[in-house]
Protein backbone atom coordinates (compact mmCIF):
# COMPACT_ATOMS: atom_id res chain seq x y z
CA UNK A 1 0.00 0.00 0.00
CA UNK A 2 1.12 3.54 -0.69
CA UNK A 3 -0.31 6.22 1.53
CA UNK A 4 0.13 9.87 0.57
CA UNK A 5 -0.72 12.15 3.45
CA UNK A 6 -1.18 15.87 3.12
CA UNK A 7 1.65 16.47 0.69
CA UNK A 8 2.68 20.01 -0.14
CA UNK A 9 5.39 20.77 -2.68
CA UNK A 10 6.68 24.26 -3.24
CA UNK A 11 9.37 25.42 -5.62
CA UNK A 12 11.35 28.60 -5.36
CA UNK A 13 11.37 30.68 -8.50
CA UNK A 14 12.48 34.16 -9.41
CA UNK A 15 9.03 35.50 -8.63
CA UNK A 16 8.68 33.90 -5.24
CA UNK A 17 7.55 30.53 -4.05
CA UNK A 18 5.12 28.52 -6.18
CA UNK A 19 2.93 25.81 -4.69
CA UNK A 20 2.75 22.99 -7.21
CA UNK A 21 0.98 20.45 -5.01
CA UNK A 22 -1.33 21.76 -2.32
CA UNK A 23 -2.29 19.33 0.50
CA UNK A 24 -2.68 16.18 -1.51
CA UNK A 25 -4.02 12.92 -0.14
CA UNK A 26 -4.24 9.58 -1.92
CA UNK A 27 -4.14 5.93 -0.94
CA UNK A 28 -3.17 3.29 -3.45
CA UNK A 29 -3.84 -0.33 -2.52
CA UNK A 30 -1.79 -3.22 -3.74
CA UNK A 31 -2.78 -4.32 -7.24
CA UNK A 32 -4.67 -1.15 -8.06
CA UNK A 33 -4.07 0.74 -11.28
CA UNK A 34 -4.47 4.40 -10.65
CA UNK A 35 -4.40 7.05 -13.33
CA UNK A 36 -3.54 10.66 -12.61
CA UNK A 37 -4.83 13.09 -15.19
CA UNK A 38 -3.70 16.63 -15.55
CA UNK A 39 -2.79 19.19 -18.14
CA UNK A 40 0.78 20.09 -18.99
CA UNK A 41 2.44 21.70 -16.00
CA UNK A 42 -0.24 20.64 -13.53
CA UNK A 43 2.30 18.84 -11.32
CA UNK A 44 1.86 15.25 -12.52
CA UNK A 45 5.56 14.56 -12.90
CA UNK A 46 6.34 16.26 -9.60
CA UNK A 47 3.82 13.99 -7.95
CA UNK A 48 5.32 10.87 -9.45
CA UNK A 49 8.82 11.93 -8.39
CA UNK A 50 7.57 12.47 -4.85
CA UNK A 51 5.91 9.03 -4.79
CA UNK A 52 9.12 7.45 -6.07
CA UNK A 53 11.12 9.16 -3.33
CA UNK A 54 13.46 10.83 -5.79
CA UNK A 55 12.32 14.19 -4.48
CA UNK A 56 11.25 15.24 -0.99
CA UNK A 57 7.96 17.00 -0.22
CA UNK A 58 7.98 20.43 1.43
CA UNK A 59 5.62 18.98 4.04
CA UNK A 60 3.48 15.89 4.51
CA UNK A 61 4.51 12.26 4.30
CA UNK A 62 4.38 9.24 2.04
CA UNK A 63 4.28 5.73 3.47
CA UNK A 64 5.39 2.93 1.20
CA UNK A 65 4.95 -0.72 2.12
CA UNK A 66 5.73 -2.13 -1.33
CA UNK A 67 8.74 -1.72 -3.60
CA UNK A 68 8.30 1.11 -6.07
CA UNK A 69 10.06 1.62 -9.39
CA UNK A 70 11.74 4.79 -10.49
CA UNK A 71 9.52 6.97 -12.71
CA UNK A 72 9.52 5.16 -16.04
CA UNK A 73 9.57 8.06 -18.40
CA UNK A 74 11.01 5.91 -21.15
CA UNK A 75 13.70 8.49 -21.80
CA UNK A 76 16.29 6.91 -19.61
CA UNK A 77 18.93 8.60 -17.53
CA UNK A 78 21.96 7.27 -19.26
CA UNK A 79 25.58 8.24 -19.19
CA UNK A 80 26.37 8.72 -22.87
CA UNK A 81 30.02 7.73 -22.67
CA UNK A 82 29.14 4.38 -21.09
CA UNK A 83 27.92 1.39 -23.06
CA UNK A 84 24.36 0.10 -22.82
CA UNK A 85 25.75 -2.83 -20.86
CA UNK A 86 27.54 -0.54 -18.37
CA UNK A 87 24.32 1.36 -17.83
CA UNK A 88 22.46 -1.88 -17.18
CA UNK A 89 25.18 -2.96 -14.78
CA UNK A 90 24.91 0.32 -12.90
CA UNK A 91 21.14 0.08 -12.50
CA UNK A 92 21.40 -3.54 -11.33
CA UNK A 93 24.05 -2.59 -8.80
CA UNK A 94 22.13 0.26 -7.23
CA UNK A 95 19.03 -1.89 -6.88
CA UNK A 96 21.02 -4.84 -5.59
CA UNK A 97 19.98 -7.14 -8.42
CA UNK A 98 22.20 -9.83 -9.87
CA UNK A 99 23.45 -8.58 -13.22
CA UNK A 100 24.63 -11.53 -15.35
CA UNK A 101 21.19 -13.14 -15.61
CA UNK A 102 19.64 -9.94 -16.99
CA UNK A 103 21.99 -9.41 -19.91
CA UNK A 104 20.30 -11.88 -22.25
CA UNK A 105 16.88 -10.49 -21.47
CA UNK A 106 17.90 -6.90 -22.12
CA UNK A 107 19.83 -7.82 -25.25
CA UNK A 108 16.90 -9.72 -26.65
CA UNK A 109 14.16 -7.31 -25.65
CA UNK A 110 15.96 -4.14 -26.72
CA UNK A 111 16.95 -5.77 -30.04
CA UNK A 112 20.25 -3.94 -29.80
CA UNK A 113 22.42 -6.98 -30.47
CA UNK A 114 26.12 -6.10 -30.58
CA UNK A 115 25.33 -2.39 -30.07
CA UNK A 116 24.78 -3.14 -26.39
CA UNK A 117 28.55 -2.97 -26.06
CA UNK A 118 28.83 0.42 -27.76
CA UNK A 119 28.62 3.81 -25.98
CA UNK A 120 25.05 5.03 -25.59
CA UNK A 121 25.93 8.35 -27.23
CA UNK A 122 26.26 6.53 -30.56
CA UNK A 123 22.65 5.25 -30.33
CA UNK A 124 19.73 6.69 -32.24
CA UNK A 125 16.85 8.01 -30.14
CA UNK A 126 14.84 4.88 -30.95
CA UNK A 127 17.69 2.66 -29.76
CA UNK A 128 17.96 4.64 -26.53
CA UNK A 129 14.27 4.33 -25.88
CA UNK A 130 14.44 0.56 -26.46
CA UNK A 131 17.36 0.23 -24.08
CA UNK A 132 15.61 2.37 -21.45
CA UNK A 133 12.49 0.25 -21.59
CA UNK A 134 14.39 -3.04 -21.48
CA UNK A 135 16.42 -1.90 -18.46
CA UNK A 136 13.26 -0.72 -16.72
CA UNK A 137 11.85 -4.21 -17.09
CA UNK A 138 15.05 -5.89 -15.91
CA UNK A 139 14.45 -4.91 -12.30
CA UNK A 140 11.17 -6.14 -10.80
CA UNK A 141 9.00 -3.98 -8.55
CA UNK A 142 5.61 -4.38 -6.86
CA UNK A 143 4.57 -1.00 -8.13
CA UNK A 144 5.46 0.70 -11.39
CA UNK A 145 5.35 4.46 -11.79
CA UNK A 146 4.66 5.34 -15.38
CA UNK A 147 5.16 8.90 -16.50
CA UNK A 148 3.47 9.83 -19.75
CA UNK A 149 3.89 6.91 -22.09
CA UNK A 150 4.84 8.10 -25.48
CA UNK A 151 5.12 5.60 -28.29
CA UNK A 152 8.45 3.84 -27.98
CA UNK A 153 10.17 3.05 -31.27
CA UNK A 154 8.05 1.79 -34.13
CA UNK A 155 4.52 0.49 -33.66
CA UNK A 156 5.64 -3.14 -33.43
CA UNK A 157 8.04 -2.33 -30.60
CA UNK A 158 5.41 -0.16 -28.97
CA UNK A 159 3.06 -3.15 -28.88
CA UNK A 160 5.79 -5.31 -27.46
CA UNK A 161 6.27 -2.82 -24.61
CA UNK A 162 2.55 -2.63 -23.93
CA UNK A 163 2.42 -6.42 -23.71
CA UNK A 164 5.47 -6.61 -21.44
CA UNK A 165 4.16 -4.00 -19.02
CA UNK A 166 0.38 -4.31 -19.05
CA UNK A 167 -0.10 -8.01 -19.86
CA UNK A 168 2.82 -9.79 -18.25
CA UNK A 169 2.76 -7.51 -15.20
CA UNK A 170 -0.98 -6.95 -14.98
CA UNK A 171 -1.22 -8.04 -11.35
CA UNK A 172 1.18 -5.30 -10.22
CA UNK A 173 0.27 -1.96 -8.78
CA UNK A 174 0.59 0.87 -11.28
CA UNK A 175 0.41 4.60 -11.07
CA UNK A 176 0.14 6.21 -14.47
CA UNK A 177 0.22 9.92 -15.13
CA UNK A 178 -0.92 11.25 -18.47
CA UNK A 179 -2.78 14.04 -20.14
CA UNK A 180 -4.40 11.55 -22.51
CA UNK A 181 -7.74 10.36 -21.10
CA UNK A 182 -7.91 7.39 -23.49
CA UNK A 183 -4.68 5.94 -22.23
CA UNK A 184 -5.84 6.15 -18.60
CA UNK A 185 -9.19 4.66 -19.54
CA UNK A 186 -7.57 1.65 -21.18
CA UNK A 187 -5.19 0.78 -18.36
CA UNK A 188 -6.59 2.07 -15.06
CA UNK A 189 -9.44 1.14 -12.77
CA UNK A 190 -9.38 4.35 -10.73
CA UNK A 191 -8.37 7.88 -11.59
CA UNK A 192 -7.61 11.21 -9.99
CA UNK A 193 -7.39 14.63 -11.57
CA UNK A 194 -4.89 17.36 -10.74
CA UNK A 195 -6.25 20.88 -11.10
CA UNK A 196 -4.36 23.92 -9.81
CA UNK A 197 -2.44 22.01 -7.20
CA UNK A 198 -5.40 20.08 -5.80
CA UNK A 199 -6.04 16.39 -6.38
CA UNK A 200 -9.58 15.13 -6.93
CA UNK A 201 -9.90 11.35 -6.63
CA UNK A 202 -12.70 9.32 -8.23
CA UNK A 203 -13.57 5.65 -7.89
CA UNK A 204 -15.17 5.60 -11.31
CA UNK A 205 -13.06 6.37 -14.34
CA UNK A 206 -16.01 8.00 -16.11
CA UNK A 207 -16.53 10.51 -13.31
CA UNK A 208 -12.86 11.42 -13.45
CA UNK A 209 -13.08 11.85 -17.22
CA UNK A 210 -16.10 14.11 -16.97
CA UNK A 211 -14.40 16.21 -14.29
CA UNK A 212 -11.19 16.40 -16.31
CA UNK A 213 -12.99 17.54 -19.46
CA UNK A 214 -14.99 20.11 -17.60
CA UNK A 215 -11.89 21.61 -15.96
CA UNK A 216 -9.45 21.32 -18.79
CA UNK A 217 -11.82 23.35 -20.92
CA UNK A 218 -12.78 25.97 -18.39
CA UNK A 219 -9.28 26.67 -17.01
Amino acid at each position, binding site marked *: MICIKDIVKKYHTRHGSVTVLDHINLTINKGEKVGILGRNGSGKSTMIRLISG*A*EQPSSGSIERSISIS*WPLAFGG*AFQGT*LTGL*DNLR*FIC*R*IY*GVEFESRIDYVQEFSELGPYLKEPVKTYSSGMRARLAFAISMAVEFDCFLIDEIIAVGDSRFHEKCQYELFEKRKNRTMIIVSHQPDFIRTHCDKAAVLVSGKLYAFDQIDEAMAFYHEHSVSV
Partner: protein
Amino acid sequence: MRVIGALLMREVLTRYGRHNIGFLWLFIEPMLFTLGVTALWTFSNVHHGSNIPIVAFAVTGYSSVLLWRNMPGRTVGAVEPNLSLMYHRNVKIIDVFAARLLLEAAGATTSFFVLSILWISIGWMQPPQDILKVLFAWFMLAWFGASLALLLGCLSERSEVVDKIWHPTAYLLFPLSGAAFMVDFLPPVAQKVILILPMVHGVELLREGYFGSFVHAHYDIPYMAAVCFGLTSLALAQERYISKRVTPE
Protein backbone atom coordinates in the same frame (compact mmCIF):
# COMPACT_ATOMS: atom_id res chain seq x y z
CA MET B 1 27.57 1.08 0.44
CA ARG B 2 26.31 -0.84 -2.58
CA VAL B 3 25.22 2.40 -4.22
CA ILE B 4 28.56 4.08 -3.51
CA GLY B 5 30.31 1.07 -5.04
CA ALA B 6 28.15 1.32 -8.17
CA LEU B 7 28.81 5.05 -8.45
CA LEU B 8 32.51 4.42 -7.97
CA MET B 9 32.63 1.96 -10.87
CA ARG B 10 30.62 4.33 -13.02
CA GLU B 11 32.89 7.23 -12.15
CA VAL B 12 36.02 5.22 -12.98
CA LEU B 13 34.60 4.16 -16.35
CA THR B 14 33.36 7.64 -17.22
CA ARG B 15 36.58 9.36 -16.26
CA TYR B 16 39.14 6.94 -17.54
CA GLY B 17 37.28 4.67 -19.95
CA ARG B 18 38.56 1.30 -21.04
CA HIS B 19 41.22 2.56 -23.40
CA ASN B 20 44.97 2.23 -22.91
CA ILE B 21 45.89 2.14 -19.22
CA GLY B 22 42.38 3.10 -18.09
CA PHE B 23 41.94 3.50 -14.38
CA LEU B 24 45.69 3.39 -13.72
CA TRP B 25 45.51 7.13 -14.53
CA LEU B 26 43.83 7.46 -11.18
CA PHE B 27 47.23 7.40 -9.50
CA ILE B 28 49.60 7.85 -12.45
CA GLU B 29 48.33 11.39 -12.88
CA PRO B 30 49.08 12.53 -9.28
CA MET B 31 52.37 10.63 -9.48
CA LEU B 32 53.40 12.64 -12.54
CA PHE B 33 52.56 15.85 -10.70
CA THR B 34 54.61 14.82 -7.70
CA LEU B 35 57.51 13.69 -9.89
CA GLY B 36 57.54 16.99 -11.74
CA VAL B 37 57.46 19.02 -8.55
CA THR B 38 60.16 16.87 -6.99
CA ALA B 39 62.39 17.49 -10.00
CA LEU B 40 61.70 21.24 -9.97
CA TRP B 41 62.36 21.57 -6.27
CA THR B 42 65.50 19.49 -6.48
CA PHE B 43 67.00 21.78 -9.12
CA SER B 44 65.78 25.04 -7.64
CA ASN B 45 66.76 24.00 -4.11
CA VAL B 46 63.51 25.34 -2.77
CA HIS B 47 64.03 24.83 0.93
CA HIS B 48 66.66 27.50 1.47
CA GLY B 49 69.73 25.49 2.27
CA SER B 50 68.12 23.42 5.02
CA ASN B 51 69.63 19.96 5.19
CA ILE B 52 66.37 18.02 4.92
CA PRO B 53 66.59 15.48 2.05
CA ILE B 54 64.85 17.20 -0.85
CA VAL B 55 63.21 14.16 -2.45
CA ALA B 56 61.42 13.13 0.73
CA PHE B 57 60.58 16.77 1.39
CA ALA B 58 58.92 17.12 -2.01
CA VAL B 59 57.11 13.79 -1.91
CA THR B 60 55.60 14.45 1.52
CA GLY B 61 54.78 18.06 0.67
CA TYR B 62 53.25 17.75 -2.76
CA SER B 63 51.40 14.51 -2.07
CA SER B 64 49.60 16.14 0.85
CA VAL B 65 48.62 19.09 -1.34
CA LEU B 66 47.15 16.70 -3.90
CA LEU B 67 45.25 14.93 -1.15
CA TRP B 68 43.43 17.92 0.36
CA ARG B 69 43.22 20.10 -2.75
CA ASN B 70 41.90 17.64 -5.32
CA MET B 71 38.95 16.47 -3.26
CA PRO B 72 37.14 19.84 -3.32
CA GLY B 73 38.08 20.10 -7.00
CA ARG B 74 36.00 16.99 -7.66
CA THR B 75 33.01 17.79 -5.48
CA VAL B 76 32.43 21.40 -6.52
CA GLY B 77 29.69 21.17 -9.14
CA ALA B 78 29.42 17.38 -8.75
CA VAL B 79 25.66 17.29 -8.29
CA GLU B 80 24.62 18.94 -11.55
CA PRO B 81 25.95 16.30 -13.99
CA ASN B 82 24.52 13.55 -11.80
CA LEU B 83 21.04 15.00 -11.41
CA SER B 84 19.51 12.42 -13.70
CA LEU B 85 20.68 9.68 -11.32
CA MET B 86 18.57 11.21 -8.59
CA TYR B 87 15.59 9.62 -10.32
CA HIS B 88 16.67 6.53 -8.46
CA ARG B 89 15.60 6.88 -4.86
CA ASN B 90 18.63 4.88 -3.64
CA VAL B 91 21.04 7.41 -5.04
CA LYS B 92 21.54 10.25 -2.59
CA ILE B 93 23.64 13.36 -3.03
CA ILE B 94 25.93 12.16 -0.27
CA ASP B 95 26.60 8.97 -2.28
CA VAL B 96 27.69 10.97 -5.31
CA PHE B 97 30.08 12.96 -3.12
CA ALA B 98 31.32 9.89 -1.25
CA ALA B 99 32.14 8.05 -4.48
CA ARG B 100 34.15 10.96 -5.82
CA LEU B 101 35.94 11.55 -2.51
CA LEU B 102 36.88 7.90 -2.14
CA LEU B 103 38.23 7.84 -5.66
CA GLU B 104 40.25 10.99 -5.17
CA ALA B 105 41.63 9.83 -1.82
CA ALA B 106 42.52 6.44 -3.31
CA GLY B 107 44.39 8.09 -6.18
CA ALA B 108 46.40 10.46 -4.00
CA THR B 109 47.13 7.75 -1.43
CA THR B 110 48.29 5.20 -3.98
CA SER B 111 50.48 7.81 -5.64
CA PHE B 112 52.05 8.75 -2.30
CA PHE B 113 52.69 5.16 -1.22
CA VAL B 114 53.95 3.94 -4.58
CA LEU B 115 56.37 6.86 -4.91
CA SER B 116 57.58 6.46 -1.33
CA ILE B 117 58.20 2.75 -1.75
CA LEU B 118 59.89 3.36 -5.10
CA TRP B 119 62.31 6.00 -3.76
CA ILE B 120 62.99 4.04 -0.59
CA SER B 121 63.78 0.88 -2.52
CA ILE B 122 66.32 2.63 -4.76
CA GLY B 123 67.75 4.56 -1.80
CA TRP B 124 66.70 8.10 -2.78
CA MET B 125 64.67 8.30 0.37
CA GLN B 126 65.06 6.89 3.85
CA PRO B 127 62.18 4.83 5.24
CA PRO B 128 59.93 6.87 7.54
CA GLN B 129 60.95 7.07 11.21
CA ASP B 130 57.47 6.48 12.54
CA ILE B 131 55.09 4.92 10.07
CA LEU B 132 52.07 5.16 12.39
CA LYS B 133 52.57 8.90 12.71
CA VAL B 134 52.75 9.14 8.90
CA LEU B 135 49.51 7.19 8.52
CA PHE B 136 47.78 9.27 11.18
CA ALA B 137 48.90 12.52 9.55
CA TRP B 138 47.70 11.22 6.19
CA PHE B 139 44.35 10.37 7.70
CA MET B 140 44.02 13.85 9.21
CA LEU B 141 44.84 15.49 5.87
CA ALA B 142 42.29 13.26 4.15
CA TRP B 143 39.68 14.16 6.75
CA PHE B 144 40.40 17.85 6.26
CA GLY B 145 40.19 17.48 2.47
CA ALA B 146 36.99 15.43 2.60
CA SER B 147 35.14 17.72 5.01
CA LEU B 148 36.18 20.83 3.10
CA ALA B 149 35.20 19.13 -0.16
CA LEU B 150 31.80 18.10 1.14
CA LEU B 151 31.07 21.60 2.41
CA LEU B 152 32.20 23.32 -0.79
CA GLY B 153 30.41 20.72 -2.93
CA CYS B 154 27.13 21.44 -1.13
CA LEU B 155 27.62 25.20 -1.14
CA SER B 156 28.43 25.17 -4.85
CA GLU B 157 24.92 23.76 -5.39
CA ARG B 158 23.47 26.84 -3.74
CA SER B 159 25.68 29.42 -5.41
CA GLU B 160 28.00 29.24 -8.37
CA VAL B 161 30.22 31.86 -6.73
CA VAL B 162 31.77 29.02 -4.74
CA ASP B 163 33.12 27.44 -7.92
CA LYS B 164 34.58 30.74 -9.09
CA ILE B 165 36.23 31.51 -5.76
CA TRP B 166 37.54 28.04 -5.01
CA HIS B 167 40.01 28.00 -7.92
CA PRO B 168 41.97 31.14 -6.96
CA THR B 169 41.75 30.19 -3.28
CA ALA B 170 43.16 26.72 -3.90
CA TYR B 171 45.94 28.22 -5.99
CA LEU B 172 46.85 30.77 -3.33
CA LEU B 173 46.64 28.27 -0.49
CA PHE B 174 49.23 25.99 -2.06
CA PRO B 175 52.31 28.13 -1.17
CA LEU B 176 50.85 28.70 2.31
CA SER B 177 49.94 25.07 3.00
CA GLY B 178 53.26 24.00 4.45
CA ALA B 179 54.10 21.85 1.43
CA ALA B 180 57.14 23.88 0.38
CA PHE B 181 58.45 24.92 3.80
CA MET B 182 58.63 23.85 7.42
CA VAL B 183 56.98 26.15 9.94
CA ASP B 184 60.28 26.18 11.81
CA PHE B 185 61.94 28.07 8.91
CA LEU B 186 59.61 31.04 9.48
CA PRO B 187 59.96 33.93 11.92
CA PRO B 188 57.83 33.42 15.07
CA VAL B 189 55.16 35.96 14.07
CA ALA B 190 54.64 34.30 10.70
CA GLN B 191 54.50 30.90 12.42
CA LYS B 192 51.50 32.01 14.46
CA VAL B 193 49.68 33.21 11.37
CA ILE B 194 50.47 30.23 9.19
CA LEU B 195 49.34 27.80 11.90
CA ILE B 196 45.80 29.14 11.55
CA LEU B 197 45.62 27.03 8.39
CA PRO B 198 44.58 23.52 9.48
CA MET B 199 46.40 21.59 6.76
CA VAL B 200 49.76 23.01 7.88
CA HIS B 201 49.42 20.98 11.09
CA GLY B 202 48.86 17.81 9.07
CA VAL B 203 51.88 18.38 6.85
CA GLU B 204 54.07 19.13 9.88
CA LEU B 205 52.97 15.92 11.59
CA LEU B 206 53.57 13.99 8.37
CA ARG B 207 57.11 15.37 8.15
CA GLU B 208 57.80 14.55 11.78
CA GLY B 209 56.67 11.00 11.07
CA TYR B 210 59.07 10.85 8.14
CA PHE B 211 62.11 12.61 9.49
CA GLY B 212 61.67 12.13 13.24
CA SER B 213 63.71 14.42 15.46
CA PHE B 214 65.66 15.53 12.40
CA VAL B 215 63.07 18.25 11.95
CA HIS B 216 61.41 20.46 14.49
CA ALA B 217 57.71 20.27 13.68
CA HIS B 218 55.00 22.63 14.90
CA TYR B 219 51.51 21.21 15.10
CA ASP B 220 48.41 21.10 17.22
CA ILE B 221 46.36 18.07 16.25
CA PRO B 222 43.41 18.82 18.59
CA TYR B 223 43.13 22.18 16.81
CA MET B 224 43.17 20.53 13.39
CA ALA B 225 40.66 17.90 14.53
CA ALA B 226 38.37 20.62 15.89
CA VAL B 227 38.44 22.46 12.57
CA CYS B 228 37.77 19.23 10.64
CA PHE B 229 34.95 18.36 13.00
CA GLY B 230 33.44 21.81 12.54
CA LEU B 231 33.72 21.56 8.76
CA THR B 232 32.18 18.07 8.79
CA SER B 233 29.19 19.20 10.87
CA LEU B 234 28.58 22.22 8.67
CA ALA B 235 28.94 20.08 5.56
CA LEU B 236 26.45 17.48 6.75
CA ALA B 237 23.95 20.19 7.66
CA GLN B 238 24.34 21.67 4.17
CA GLU B 239 23.98 18.23 2.65
CA ARG B 240 20.64 17.80 4.42
CA TYR B 241 19.52 21.17 3.21
CA ILE B 242 20.26 20.55 -0.45
CA SER B 243 19.02 16.94 -0.51
CA LYS B 244 15.63 18.14 0.67
CA ARG B 245 15.51 20.47 -2.27
CA VAL B 246 17.13 18.57 -5.09
CA THR B 247 15.02 18.16 -8.22
CA PRO B 248 16.01 15.31 -10.52
CA GLU B 249 16.46 16.31 -14.10
